[in-house]
């Protein structure tokens, strides 16, 4: 687990929260899934498949050599005015249908009954719920901490849409919006155009990052709500050019993660302003 140290970064400013419990829940779930997989293996499948199992259970999380960027996003809810320019910028860049809101701006209600806006990209979970459920291993996690979809593998069962607690996944129910020649190869890091009959979601503009560009939504937010950053170097920047030291910024502003109790360990941190609790109990049962 190369990702634990960033977790601790968050744990510090989440001092009031029961970080330990959340971690324990997650480990329990992963462990259980692995045990279940081994059980299946023991019952029905021959030992020759062990390698497949290991490969499937550990999607691309092996320790890389040298410092690796660990991408993250910070969303300052105090500033969002609900203009949804992030949504449309994302859709334009990735040639998405109107209802494919990879960056969705929800109108939420706070404890005082007032509306506020909440942008929701993929939370790039450290323990994603969407990855283990895919029967053909089309979802995977990159060493930089991005959860991506391999649309050349996806068969369209949609069980990942069932699993994601953040409704972050969008299906291609019809032919995708046609796209002109792209500056990047069509691959999980830049799935443009989308593929009919497969699942798509926010990729944190993975292909643009090595070129030094910020994600489209971050660049296009006129309010500077969205920060994009690297946990390894502890720095993040928003579309207005403001740079922050992630650890202190999160700690000073009491940052939270969405649905922490699900144990997914998102790498999207929210800064709540005025009693915004993200309705954190919205689906717990």
């Amino acid at each position, binding site marked *: 687990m190369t990702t634990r140290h960033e977790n601790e970064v968050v744990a510090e400013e989440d001092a009031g929260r029961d970080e330990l419990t959340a971690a324990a829940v997650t480990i329990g779930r992963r462990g259980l899934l692995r045990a279940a997989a081994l059980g*299946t293996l023991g019952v029905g499948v021959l030992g020759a498949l062990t390698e497949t199992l290991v490969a499937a259970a550990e999607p691309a999380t092996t320790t890389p050599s040298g410092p690796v960027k660990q991408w993250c996003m910070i969303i300052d809810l105090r500033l969002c005015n609900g203009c949804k320019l992030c949504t449309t910028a994302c859709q334009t860049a990735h040639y998405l249908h109107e209802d494919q809101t990879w960056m969705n701006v929800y109108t939420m209600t706070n404890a005082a009954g007032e509306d506020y806006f909440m942008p929701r990209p993929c939370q790039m979970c450290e323990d994603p719920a969407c990855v*283990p459920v895919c*029967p053909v291993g089309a979802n995977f996690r990159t060493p930089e901490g991005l959860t991506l979809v391999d649309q050349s593998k996806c068969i369209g069962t949609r069980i990942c849409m069932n699993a994601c607690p953040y409704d972050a996944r969008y299906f291609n129910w019809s032919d995708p919006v046609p796209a002109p020649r792209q500056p990047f190869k069509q691959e999980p890091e830049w799935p443009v155009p989308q593929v009919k009959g497969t699942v798509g979601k926010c990729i944190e503009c993975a292909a643009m990052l090595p070129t030094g560009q910020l994600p489209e939504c971050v660049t296009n937010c006129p309010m500077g709500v969205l920060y994009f950053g690297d946990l390894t170097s502890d720095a993040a920047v928003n579309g207005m050019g403001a740079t922050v030291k992630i650890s202190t910024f999160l700690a000073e502003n009491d940052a939270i993660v969405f649905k922490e109790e699900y144990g997914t360990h998102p790498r999207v941190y929210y800064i709540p302003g005025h009693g915004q609790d993200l309705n954190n109990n919205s689906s717990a049962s």
Partner: protein
Amino acid sequence: MTDVIIPNVGRDQSSPQETDLRAVAMRPVLETPRWWWPSIGVLTVIVLGGIAAWIYQVANGLGTAGYNDGAFWAIYEANLVTFIGVSYGGAVVSAILRLTHAAWRAPLTRIAEATALVTLPIGMVFIIPHLGDPSRIWELVWPPYWNLTSPILWDFFAVSTYLLATIVFFYLPLVPDAAIALERFDDEVPSTRVKVRKSLYRVLVGRFGGTPYERRRLNGAIGLIAIMIIPMAVSVHSVLSFAFASSSRAGYMETILPVYFVVAALYSGVALVVLTVAASRKLFHLEAFVTPRHFVRLGFLMIAFGAAYLYLTFTEYLIDGYSGTAGASAWVYQIVAGRYAIPFWIYFVAGGIAPLFIMMFRRFRTTSGVVVASFLVVAALWIKRLVIVIPPATEPLVNSPLAKGGVLAGNWGTYHFTWVPISITIAATAAIPLLLLVVFRFVPILSMAEMEELAEGHEESGTLEVGA
């Protein structure tokens, strides 16, 4: 095959046409009733219509089936569960009644096993329209692609194993029957029809000679499969529920779901067996062997499962509704009082209360009463599957409904029924009688050997109703 043991059951009855077991069992194989070809024609056209609708869907995307991001699972997933579920009826009538030595089962086993044999593959076929990209379905059978932590893959393994068991369970009791049929064919004019069946039966019989030793071994094997198929069927329906339950969505994430699926499968499965037995009885004149008492017994079996199902439904909704957590309460309220209330109450009345009511009173507990009840159960349990599958798939996960002003609020997704999945569903339904008609054109509709053996008086001959 002249050394086949042929007990003399039913042969010395007064009206040989109606009560000669072998004649009745073989009649659908040897004669073509006037309605046969027209029925095959109509059913085939309906099935082809479904295939055409599917081709349209492949060309234009799953959106044409009414799906959207606010309702990612709906009718196909419900159909998958429904059709695989009804196939359980064959296992229960045949295996459970065999293991409990309920001799009255004998005239029903072949029909029940055939029903399982045809409904299970039809259910599995729903994997295809369910997939967004069916052209890559081969990834499910190609090990390098397998991700063994996926419940869908568990489903796939479980259902495939169950299919194999169902085929074996259909085949084994057929072996002595094929031997009997083969021998009977010696007296027939060797038309093409007879010749084709003769070569089929020769393959089915293999080296089975019908000696008492072989019969004992065969019965041992059937008993073993009967024992194996019960835990197998339980696990299949449980694992089927895992695909839903292994999530954090209220309504799917239910510990009760596996049990719920198993009981629903038993309930609707017995109901479908009643329907196929009733239809076969009418169409192939099995009245001498399948009596009204059979229907009443099946009816009692059915409502026992029905009552259990009602109890599970009540438990689930009461506890989740009572919990007060936003997701679970909102989901229950939407079902009992909100946007899913109409289908839910249709299930409750038609699939929960009415069958109990029909079976409760002697006046309604007739053959037609049981058939009506079974029809209601099959239809209502399909609706109930929609009520299980659709609400959680349309649940808003980001906006808390409670924060939005009460359990009935929130931005719920909507599934729109379109002609595409409806045509495919009707086609799948038509495929059941179509395939059964074809099956019974090749194999005896009653398991002759089993009935004769029982009539010879070894097991509980007192309760046996052969020729009664």
